[in-house]
C-alpha cells in the first residue's frame, strides 16, 4: 500500500534523469534534515532556470516515531541573482518561487522536540507555495554543491483523527512547511551535459 507511490515517484525520477529528451542539465542528490531525494536542474536561459526536486520526507523517521516516510515534490523557477569568482571556484546565488505537493506527516503540535513519543499517524496531502534561496558552489569539475533553503506556505489535508466512526477530512496549515524553512538543503550536483 505504502510502496506504490514511491515506486511511481522513483520511476518518474529515473525517467527524467535518463530520458535523453528530459533536457536536464544537472542532476543532484538532495540531502537535508527534511529528507533524501533527487533534484533536476533544467538549462538556464537569460539568468532563469527551473528545478524539480522529489524526496522522501523523513519527519518522525530518524527517531523511529513513524515507520514509513512521506514523499514530496517541488517545482521552482530560479533567478540567478549574483555570482562571485573565488580562488578557483565560483559561487552563484539564486532565489525564486515554486510549488510543492506531497503525501506527508505534519508537525504534531506541542511535541516538536520530543524524540520518544509516538506521533499520531496523520499522513495527508500537502499543497504549498514555496520560496527558495540558494548558493551554487561550482568547482569546475563535474561535481558541484548546492546549498539552499525552502519555505513552504500551504495546507495539509488528512483524515480527521477525532472522527472514528466515519471518514472526515481535516484541513489545517501545513506547519512543517514553515517550521522547516531553516533546515539546510545540500545537493551534490552532477553535470549531465
Amino acid at each position, binding site marked *: 500500500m505504502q510502496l506504490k507511490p514511491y515506486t511511481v515517484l522513483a520511476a518518474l525520477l529515473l525517467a527524467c534523469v535518463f530520458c535523453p529528451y528530459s533536457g536536464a542539465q544537472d542532476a543532484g*542528490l538532495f*540531502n537535508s*534534515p527534511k529528507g*533524501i531525494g533527487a533534484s533536476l536542474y533544467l538549462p538556464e536561459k537569460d539568468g532563469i532556470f527551473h528545478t524539480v526536486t522529489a524526496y522522501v520526507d*523523513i519527519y518522525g*523517521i*530518524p*527517531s*523511529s*516515531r513513524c*515507520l514509513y*516516510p512521506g514523499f514530496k515534490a517541488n517545482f521552482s523557477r530560479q533567478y540567478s541573482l549574483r555570482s562571485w569568482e573565488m580562488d*578557483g*571556484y565560483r559561487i552563484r546565488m539564486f532565489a525564486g518561487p515554486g510549488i510543492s505537493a506531497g503525501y506527508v506527516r505534519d508537525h504534531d503540535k506541542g511535541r516538536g522536540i520530543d*524524540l*520518544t513519543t509516538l506521533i499520531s499517524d496523520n499522513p495527508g496531502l500537502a499543497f504549498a507555495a514555496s520560496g527558495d534561496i540558494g548558493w551554487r558552489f561550482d*568547482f*569546475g*569539475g563535474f*561535481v*558541484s*554543491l548546492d546549498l539552499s533553503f525552502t519555505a513552504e506556505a500551504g495546507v495539509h489535508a488528512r483524515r480527521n483523527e477525532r472522527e472514528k466512526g466515519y471518514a472526515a477530512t481535516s484541513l489545517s496549515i501545513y506547519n512543517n512547511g514553515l517550521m522547516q524553512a531553516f533546515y539546510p538543503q*545540500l545537493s*551534490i550536483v552532477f553535470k549531465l551535459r
Partner: protein
Amino acid sequence: MLFSLAMQARMPHISYGLEWGYTATFFKHAHYNFICDEGYRINEKTDTWRYFSNGAVMANVGVDITRHLNVSAYSGLLGVYSKRWVIPAELRLRYCPLGLDASGPLIHAGAAAAFPTSTLTDTGARGILGGGYRLAIYKSMSVDFLLSLNLTLDHDNITDPDTKRYVPRSDITSNVSEYCAVNVSVALNF
C-alpha cells in the same frame, strides 16, 4: 629556511567534515539475567528480527597520518532501534588506496563509546566497518558515498515482570543488547 621546510613537511593536514545518513536496524540480540522481585532468577536470551529506520548525523575532526590513511574523532547523534538515541565518541580509520585527496574507493573501520540521551542510563559501545567511494571536488574537499555495517551494544532498563518497576542494578547479572544495522551515508570532507 630549512627549519621552515622541515616544519611544513612534518605538519599533518587537519581534516574535518560532516556525515549524515540512513540506518536500517534489522536485528536485536538481548541477554538478560536478573533476580526478579519475587526472588527467582530469570535468564532470558532473545533474537528479534525487526526492521527500524533510524537516522545518523555526525561531525568529525582528524589528521591525515599518511597520504592514504586518516584517523578522525567523530561525534553526533545516532538513532538506534526504537525510541533511543545515543551520542557516540568514535575513533575511525579511513584508508584510501589512491590517496586521500584523490577520487577512488575507500574503506573505514571505527569503534565508539555510545552515551545514551534518553531512556537508557548506561554507556554502550559501537563498532562500524564499511567502505565506499570518494569523489574529490576541490583541493582537499571531497564527498564520500558510504555503506557500513554497524554493531551497537547497550544496556536496557530491565522491567520486573511482576511489579513493572525497573530491576535494581544489584539484582542484574547480565544485561546486554546488540543491534545489527546497515548504514548508507554521505560525508562531506574538508
